[in-house]
């Protein structure tokens, strides 16, 4: 082994139902390494520290620049993106585990379709298709654009769900990311037309009421999205909507 090495411990499972085992790898250090480079080096030569022949550890990654969200995992216990986790800034051994709040697929790969399903359930899109050309939408004020842009950076990585005490098998809580997306779509001049549907979905099982304000989400979001602000803003919208429709009905 060269003088300077990187030690990586990975929690591995071939299948979700088999017991986890830890494997330790020792890699040659190079400047500017990140966790994805480590995983690639392991895939190139999957031999554990004690000389056993193993297999490449499965993981997901696409953009390698913290915009796609795919590479979220627990790195030394913190949910974060592997591609932006620089080895120089990490304590060794670097412990890699899959996110724990999503169904495991294999090794570091989890199934985050819950987030996509919840985005659909809360109507997080703007319907613009019709049987005829609807023409240009209304204009968006620069102030709304400025509030909305940071929210639009969400990449569905799932870190905010992983860190939330209320996202677990006891609840169906949609989590901070989805609530923040509802805020984004309700802010849009065309999206507003469907705000009632989104707010009513947020009042359903696993809706915004499950948030108990631990405010962990905002501390782990790699995109710096003001999640606690979004949640409070949506709490206001949902409560006003609930009171208004209960007392005076829909418009």
């Amino acid at each position, binding site marked *: 082994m060269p003088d300077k090495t990187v030690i990586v411990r990975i929690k591995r499972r071939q299948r979700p139902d088999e017991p986890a085992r830890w494997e330790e790898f020792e890699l040659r250090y190079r400047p500017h390494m990140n966790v994805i480079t480590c995983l690639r080096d392991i895939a190139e030569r999957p031999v554990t520290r004690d000389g056993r022949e193993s297999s490449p550890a499965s993981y997901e990654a696409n953009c390698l620049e913290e915009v796609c969200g795919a590479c979220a995992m627990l790195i030394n*216990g*913190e949910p974060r993106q592997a591609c932006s986790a620089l080895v120089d800034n990490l304590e060794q051994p670097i412990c890699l585990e899959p996110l724990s709040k999503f169904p495991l697929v294999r090794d570091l790969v989890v199934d985050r379709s819950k987030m996509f399903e919840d985005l659909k359930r809360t109507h997080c899109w703007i319907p613009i298709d019709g049987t005829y050309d609807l023409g240009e939408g209304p204009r968006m004020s620069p102030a709304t654009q400025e509030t909305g842009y940071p929210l639009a950076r969400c990449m569905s990585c799932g870190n905010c769900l992983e*860190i939330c*005490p*209320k996202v*677990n098998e*006891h*609840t169906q809580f949609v989590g901070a990311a989805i609530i923040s997306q509802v805020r984004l779509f309700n802010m849009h001049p065309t999206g507003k037309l469907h705000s*009632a*549907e989104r707010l*009513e*979905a947020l*009042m*359903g*099982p696993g*809706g*915004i*009421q*499950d*948030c*108990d*304000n*631990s*405010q*962990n989400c905002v*501390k782990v979001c790699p995109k710096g999205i*003001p999640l*606690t*602000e979004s*949640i*409070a*803003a*949506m*709490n*206001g*919208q*949902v*409560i*006003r909507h*609930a009171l208004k429709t209960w007392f005076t009905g*829909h418009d």
Partner: protein
Amino acid sequence: MASAVGVTRTSFFLDKLQSLSGIVPIGAYLAEHFFENSYALVSPDKYNYIASKLETVPWRIPLEFLLIWLPILFHGCYGLYIWWNGKANAIGHPWMTNWLYVLQRWTGIIVFAFIGYHVWTVRFLSHGKTTYADIAHAMANPWIVAIYAIGILAASFHLGNGLWNFSCKWGFAVTPESQRAAGWFGACVAIVFAVIGLAIIAGFRFHWTPFDTYL
């Protein structure tokens, strides 16, 4: 209850009711309770006079039931259910707000236990006719002083932190600045309640009546 898109809103309604009940009537009652008991700091006679007046409030039993017992039972029991629905992780992720989440729960159960003890001794064992002398006698025991001090500190924290939670959960404090201000407001409320509550204990224990004279 079913909404336009066919989802049930039962848990939304119960969660919001639990949250609101912490402020009104429970928090409001706590303020009233601390105020009435501050008459112990005026004089034993005044305290007994106020207590006997409260004992003969018209519609006492239904009022107590609707404004005190039922809300506390609901808030506490549903609070335990909310607690059970969460998986705290403050040990691995020790951010302040994460610890506040944990403390809100532990102070809640401490207050629940304390209220049980308090109500049992001063309400049921005495048939609701506790006098200044009864409490002063109990407070001669340092263990009882400790139990009351813990109950008061836990309730003060729980209400102060609850005010912060409430302002976020009802959308009153949205921006980080206003949430921070709501947090400081809650902290001030907690400190004021703790000081008043501990002063009342001191009043009973040391027969201390600082408000005895007209200034």
